[in-house]
């Protein structure tokens, strides 16, 4: 790390403070996992399966052990005898297959890239050389690479004792679809597809483990979004108590949901640190991250929508098939697909909605979370249905939405699946969108372009996002709420520790502001930390757009408690009732009298004789904060409110399609976004910009390919195209602020644009192709895929 001039104070802007962590991160002074150094650090490399499906007959590591510099070579069978196994701990879901799996594959491999053996050596170079000296005798088995083929009766089975490949089956018969379909004027039948992509952090998963045999303590630095959850799992695998384990999550170049999962290698690092008694490190390389971390999105939807000729959708049936790849992923990789089923009604009044979810195991890398967490697929489904039905009926997309939207006066509105929507007006949000995007003009320009033979399209979409999902009963062995510690130090400066974990979102800036505002001091006097289980007893990490809602709420709650105590001290010193004391600009005030904040702090710690009689010294709290409004389990009708609150957004896109090459250019993108109280608009806009980029990538560039034998074909960034600076689309952003009832009024942000924008882009491309009559029913609109569509259409 090179020395850089100390940062100048981050400037205030009219819309918020610039991010205080940026100087450090942008000048190369962040501490990422790769920056954590230890004397005598040893390196782990992992032998991975070259086959998609095979039985492991025998593994011989003796060759690897002969290489100078190799400290140990380990197989799954050997470690399984000594360490615990992973288990989803979701016995509460009776239709979920219960699995136990180990830190390395034991009897069978189920995807190319599955970890089979590990070498510890003086350097990663030597470790990788040693991998080549390990001999594995595999009995290759036929592989399931296509999810629908995996459902066929004669498909190869990943787990012979299952009898099929269905990892999770959930039926969701909500309302009365029988009657709805019986009363319908027409039924739309469609199949929608979502391709396999990956939320790809700049630095992948990785961990550095240190075990002190003398004290029996384990410290694991891990690039994770969920340090406390990881600690629980490490305890289970290693047999150590949680009190002996400290997980530290350093700076991270993104997580995007990928790191809300614990890859088995993180536990392996802990196990090997205990075995070899050296600090050991493993860092995912890019091929490992592309083939053996966490994929996402792949689903097939078979949908039937019953509609009336006036545009009203009366009922909906959806068969949702999710390709979960190898299900041996912790936390549950089927989670996003479950969320898909819950979000389908979106912001529409659709009570008669029945789904059947099948999460199917295939011989591909595990599928799990990626920013948006299954909600984008649901929004795509319902938004496409509205447009396609509208097209049949000659009702325009705006009207279709207005006809079906939940009326403003119904708040809270309980959706078919039990979500308790507390959102602002959908109608006003849509009006803001149409105005902001100048929708009428955009449609006029589209019509003109059409007369010139150009394929220009306009599309809109809306979304409701379940933010801060405080799942309880279905969280297995984890708790989901938030904790924060706040300590005013003797000098009057403040430490805040949160259980969320920033992956680059700017938490240091926002939590400092949240605490400072409550304490009546400057954010500069507040130091924020996160990602250390040694400091805070518990925390649920950062995912589900929850950090501001839950972490922010916890910080405010903690600050209020400390402030109350400080007010009591001030009241004692000023000899006045506490309710007459005000707090501002670093002073506790009573009329003209004012006591500096730092003076109260020193009284609390150093001059405790000044405290009111019987008051304990010190100024620190650890608080837990729950929203208390989510359901621990589904009720007897399968309904469940999972989220503390709901954010909303709407998007309008204008695109032009080049039919010869399949290239879509995005001419204009407008997003209306309501995440409740806006804490810092600079940071919020940054979240939206990033999500838009990922929406562009997901729609036009990214696709993970496997061949029919389950061989991954996108193993480097040469083959997997993520958006770069040349692909930037700058959205026009309009903020609405409808405060929630939670502390601070926050609703949560981060994922919304990635949930809604793909649906708006698909709608716009569909609209552009109206002259050709090519409907869009797939999320993948990359140039070659769009050409496939146009070619198929002109052929047949």
């Amino acid at each position, binding site marked *: 790390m090179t020395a850089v001039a100390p940062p100048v104070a981050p400037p205030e802007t009219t819309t918020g403070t610039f991010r205080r962590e940026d100087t450090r991160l942008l000048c190369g002074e962040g501490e990422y996992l790769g920056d954590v150094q230890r004397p005598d650090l040893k390196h782990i490399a992992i032998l991975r399966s070259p086959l998609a499906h095979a039985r492991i007959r025998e593994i011989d590591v003796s060759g690897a052990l002969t290489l100078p510099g190799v400290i140990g070579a380990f197989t799954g069978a050997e470690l399984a005898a000594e360490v615990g196994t992973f288990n989803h701990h979701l016995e509460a879901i009776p239709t979920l297959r219960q699995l136990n799996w180990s830190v390395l594959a034991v009897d069978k491999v189920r995807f190319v890239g599955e970890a089979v053996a590990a070498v510890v050596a003086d350097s990663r170079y030597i470790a990788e*050389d040693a991998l080549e000296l390990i001999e594995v005798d595999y009995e290759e088995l036929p592989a399931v690479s296509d999810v629908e083929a995996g459902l066929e009766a004669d498909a190869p089975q990943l787990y012979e004792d299952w009898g099929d490949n269905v990892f999770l089956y959930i039926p969701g018969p909500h309302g009365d679809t029988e009657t709805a379909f019986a009363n319908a004027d027409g039924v739309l039948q469609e199949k929608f597809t979502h391709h396999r992509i990956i939320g790809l952090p700049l630095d992948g998963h990785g961990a550095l483990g240190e075990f002190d045999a003398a004290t029996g303590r384990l410290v694991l630095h891990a690039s994770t979004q969920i340090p406390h959850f990881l600690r629980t799992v490490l305890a289970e695998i290693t047999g150590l108590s949680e009190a002996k384990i400290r997980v530290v999550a350093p700076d991270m170049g993104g997580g995007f949901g990928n790191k809300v999962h614990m890859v088995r290698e993180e536990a392996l690092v802990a196990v090997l640190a205990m075995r070899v008694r050296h600090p050991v490190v493993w860092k995912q390389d890019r091929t490992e991250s592309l083939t053996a971390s966490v994929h996402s999105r792949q689903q097939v939807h078979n949908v039937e929508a019953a509609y009336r000729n006036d545009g009203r959708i009366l009922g909906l049936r959806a068969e949702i098939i999710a390709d979960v790849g190898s299900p041996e992923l912790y936390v549950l990789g089927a989670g996003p697909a479950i969320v898909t089923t819950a979000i389908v009604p979106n912001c529409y009044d659709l009570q008669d909605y029945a789904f059947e979810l099948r999460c199917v195991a295939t011989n591909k890398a595990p599928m799990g979370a990626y920013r948006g967490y299954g909600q984008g697929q649901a929004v795509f489904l319902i938004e496409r249905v509205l447009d396609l039905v509208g097209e049949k009926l000659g009702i325009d997309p705006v009207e279709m939405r207005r006809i079906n939207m939940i009326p403003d006066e119904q708040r809270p509105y309980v959706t078919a699946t039990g979500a308790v929507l507390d959102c602002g007006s959908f109608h006003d949000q849509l009006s803001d969108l149409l105005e902001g995007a100048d929708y009428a003009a955009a449609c006029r320009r589209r019509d003109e372009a059409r007369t010139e033979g150009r394929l220009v399209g306009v599309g809109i979409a809306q979304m409701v996002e379940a933010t801060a999902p405080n799942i309880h009963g279905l969280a297995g062995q984890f708790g989901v709420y938030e904790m924060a510690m706040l300590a005013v130090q003797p000098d009057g400066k403040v430490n805040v520790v949160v259980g969320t974990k920033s992956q680059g979102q700017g938490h240091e800036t926002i939590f400092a502001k949240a605490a400072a505002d409550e304490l009546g001091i400057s954010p500069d006097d507040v130091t924020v930390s996160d990602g250390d289980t040694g400091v805070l007893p518990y925390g649920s990490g950062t995912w589900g757009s929850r950090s501001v809602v839950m972490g922010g709420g916890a910080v405010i709650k903690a600050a209020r408690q400390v402030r109350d105590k400080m007010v009591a001290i001030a009241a004692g010193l000023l000899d006045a009732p506490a309710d007459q004391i005000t707090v501002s600009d670093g002073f506790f005030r009573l009329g003209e009298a004012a006591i500096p904040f730092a003076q109260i702090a020193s009284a609390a710690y150093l001059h405790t004789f000044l405290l009111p009689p019987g008051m304990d010294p010190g100024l620190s709290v650890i608080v837990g904060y729950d929203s208390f409004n989510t359901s621990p389990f589904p009720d007897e009708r399968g309904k469940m409110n999972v989220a503390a609150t709901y954010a909303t957004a709407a998007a309008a896109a204008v695109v032009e399609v080049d039919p*010869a090459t399949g290239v879509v250019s995005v001419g204009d993108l407008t997003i209306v976004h309501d995440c409740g109280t806006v804490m810092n608009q600079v940071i919020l806009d940054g979240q939206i910009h990033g999500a838009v980029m990922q929406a562009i990538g997901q729609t036009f560039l990214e696709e993970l390919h496997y061949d029919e034998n389950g061989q991954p074909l996108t193993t*480097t960034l040469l083959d997997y195209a993520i958006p*770069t600076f040349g692909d930037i689309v700058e959205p026009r952003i309009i903020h609405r602020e409808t405060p929630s009832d939670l502390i601070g009024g926050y609703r949560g942000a981060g994922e919304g644009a990635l949930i809604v924008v793909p649906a708006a882009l698909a709608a716009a491309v569909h609209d552009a192709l109206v002259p050709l009559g090519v409907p869009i029913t797939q999320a993948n609109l*990359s*140039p070659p895929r769009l050409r*496939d569509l146009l070619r198929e259409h002109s052929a047949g």
Partner: protein
Amino acid sequence: MKPARFEYVAVESVAEATEALADSEDARVLAGGQSLVPLMNLRLARPSLLVDVNGVGALSGFEARNGTLRFGAMCRHRFLETDPAVRRQAPIVAETAGLIGHVGIRNRGTLGGSIAHADPVAELPALLVALGGNVVASSTTGERRVPAAELFAGPFMTSLEPAELLTAVEIPAHGEGDGGAFSEFVLRHGDFATAGVAVILHRDGDGACESVRVAGCGLGPTPMDLSAAGEFLLGESALTDGGADELGRRVAAASDPTGDVHGSGEYRRELAAVLAADAVRRAWGRAGSTGGG
């Protein structure tokens, strides 16, 4: 993603390089390293010895001699793209080099490396075929010239011997009435081309097309010579939209692309048609204007 063990030697002359290559079983030349090093990190290439020729002054530079332009093998893409003399005397080389990757890649990657690497989607090998150029190869037993038509043997394969060093690339000098264009399709700025088409033509004083050469990248297992597709243009003194599209159709029909994650064979064929039509329009215009392109 670490390479297997290898030895390394930095040489200063062509003779040293060819000796080192002759002496060792699996020696490889290290030029810009932009293709070789990633392959080594993936352990798809496992040379026992790297012969680093970056210090061989004789391999750089560019000169015009008797109607031939001679480029040292170590000319960096960025040099080809930006050098005023190259831009003047070989505008199509400058245009094509500018299409390669990003600036950082072009600062390191070399003409010789690109041609020796023989990636079927690389631009410069296709351009060499379109221009009907040749390479100069040296070994401890002497020097020989290999015409482009005989150089590319398959994907990532040339007819050069493992112990041969590619020292120079020669192409015909650009003259009055010459016009060329390279059109390609990339998914993102800086990507390898999914497909690309080079059209090089010459129009006589009256504007009639006297010669036309067409080559493609990403359209077959090697850079493809698709010149036969353009023969119908010979003698024509105007290029109609129909003519350009016709070339596109013929180029598409003559190409032989296979599919990969970047696009199916069919998709590449469709791109070939679009790209050939675009390239011939631009080349035609340039050949007709003085100064050319």
